[in-house]
């Protein structure tokens, strides 16, 4: 993509985000849009890991849980500033990711997927059983609002702007990253570990770093979630089924397309809202829609749209030449 197009897309994205709350003008849906932003932040991180570096995590909701519960526990029990609690949440998730990643990322194959699956289960069990500390299955309540420069973000419109500013920041930093020396190393090890290693890329270390980064983004999402609903429990959206939903967001939006993660998060969360009226059949409908998208757009929504545009441009170019 040329730099000019990138600027145009950024301006369009900024304008859309700025205009959305007045257009929606409905508290419930603004709340949903906040969830979309939170999901998008976690999905962007997971896309860096899955889409670019080719490593699968089936336990990313556990890092959201670590983020959400660290914020919840520190703000309700110690009265520390929510921002400091959030920083601790990111550090703790990074530390856990490092411990999980060091042994598993040295190996080739699906060891990371297995290990993260296990970590997800363990985190859910710890949060459920350690009830003195975590509130057990009933969870923790009365998590305070975040405030920015002394202004409490005490309604959904204000919180919407904070969350989506962070989505934009995550997008910006991630897209810088993938277009750099580090990003090329990630993409290279995805398609050819041996060739990348012989080019001087430290495979294990690069994988570990991107895994830690994606865990930290998940923790940020979890912490933002806690300050949005003011309540956390070990399950929704912190258990295995949400880990799978995050993977679906990434694949549905398009692996290795960062805007795809935002589109994927919006699709999954909005579908969840609309399909709720189907009661128990929502899972079925969700599955059918997913299968259809992946059959007709195997590169995901944004990836598929991009290749359609490219094909049309190529066809247009050929028509002009003849």
């Amino acid at each position: 993509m040329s730099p000019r197009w990138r600027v145009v897309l950024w301006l369009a994205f900024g304008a859309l985000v700025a205009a959305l709350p007045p257009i929606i003008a409905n508290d419930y849906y603004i709340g949903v849009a906040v969830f979309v932003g939170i999901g998008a932040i976690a999905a962007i991180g997971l896309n860096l890991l899955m889409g670019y570096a080719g490593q699968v995590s089936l336990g990313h909701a556990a890092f959201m849980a670590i983020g959400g519960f660290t914020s919840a526990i520190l703000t309700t029990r110690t009265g520390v500033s929510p921002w400091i609690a959030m920083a601790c949440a990111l550090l703790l998730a990074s530390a856990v990711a490092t411990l999980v990643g060091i042994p598993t990322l040295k190996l080739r194959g699906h060891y990371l997927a297995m290990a993260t699956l296990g970590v997800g289960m363990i985190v859910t069990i710890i949060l459920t059983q350690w009830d003195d500390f975590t509130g057990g299955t009933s969870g923790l309540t009365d998590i305070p609002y975040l405030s920015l420069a002394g202004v409490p973000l005490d309604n959904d419109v204000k919180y919407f702007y904070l969350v989506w500013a962070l989505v934009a920041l995550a997008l910006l930093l991630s897209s810088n990253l993938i277009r750099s020396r580090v990003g090329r190393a990630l993409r290279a090890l995805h398609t050819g570990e041996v060739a990348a290693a012989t080019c001087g890329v430290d495979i294990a270390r690069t994988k570990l770093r991107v895994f830690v980064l994606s865990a930290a983004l998940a923790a940020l999402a979890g912490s933002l979630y806690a300050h949005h609903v003011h309540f956390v429990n070990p399950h929704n959206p912190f258990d295995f089924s949400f880990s799978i939903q995050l993977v679906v967001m990434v694949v549905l939006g398009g692996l290795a397309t960062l805007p795809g993660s935002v589109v994927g998060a919006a699709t999954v969360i909005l579908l969840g809202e609309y399909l709720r009226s189907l009661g128990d059949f929502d899972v079925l409908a969700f599955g059918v829609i997913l299968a259809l998208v992946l059959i007709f757009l195997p590169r995901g929504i944004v990836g598929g749209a991009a290749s359609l545009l490219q094909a049309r441009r190529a066809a247009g170019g050929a028509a002009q030449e003849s």
Partner: protein
Amino acid sequence: MAAPVLEANRLQKVFGGLVAVHDVSFRVPEGGVKAMIGPNGAGKTTVFNLLSGVYPVTSGTFLMGGRRADGRPPHVVAHMGLARTFQNVRLFGNMSVVENVMVGWHRRGRAGFLAAALRLPRARREEAAAREACLEHLARVGLEGWADEDALSLPFGRQRLLEIARALASRPRLLLLDEPAAGLSTREKADLARLVRAICDDGVTILLVDHDMEFVMDISDEVMVLDHGEKIAEGPPRQVQKDERVIAAYLGEEADAPD
């Protein structure tokens, strides 16, 4: 005398019960083109995989510029100044031509996660310089007009050249070329021979494996011959061509005998 670029002592590689490389010792002196030839299955590519750290050695050692390099992972060997190409070209298919070369440049850069994500001034300067340098490497192999194409959209012969450009981008002391001429037309081979000599003249020592006798004899200063994992001859091309064990090895295997 300065230490040779590469010195291999009694290299041994065993896969299960198969001895792929047996007791192979050799030196690659600075500044020439050395070729390793031998029938199919002689262990040539295995030797390359040992030297580049892709496989660990079963026993034996090798030194690069006098420093022990065996037992080190591929990226460390790369940082010691070794670069290679692959028999079955291994480009990064999800990247453009120039980006492939820029992965080769990786070890020359410094920008880490933080500097890259924040696009710090030094990371931007480094990135611009890297692209510049990599475009020069592309021009070196004659691919200057292809920089922004998808790497895998190149015709096969040019993919080979791209792999050489990628290897050169790390500014290696020693370049390993694994069957660079395989599958090329006569004319492409002649161009490649000129390119290999020119790279050598720039001060990069070259060790190559190939089947094409004419190509090898033409460009090499020194030839070593492997058969069944063992070194059976080594010396100047003319002398090796007349060696009886070499002729027997080739005639016994296939009719691809040196003339």
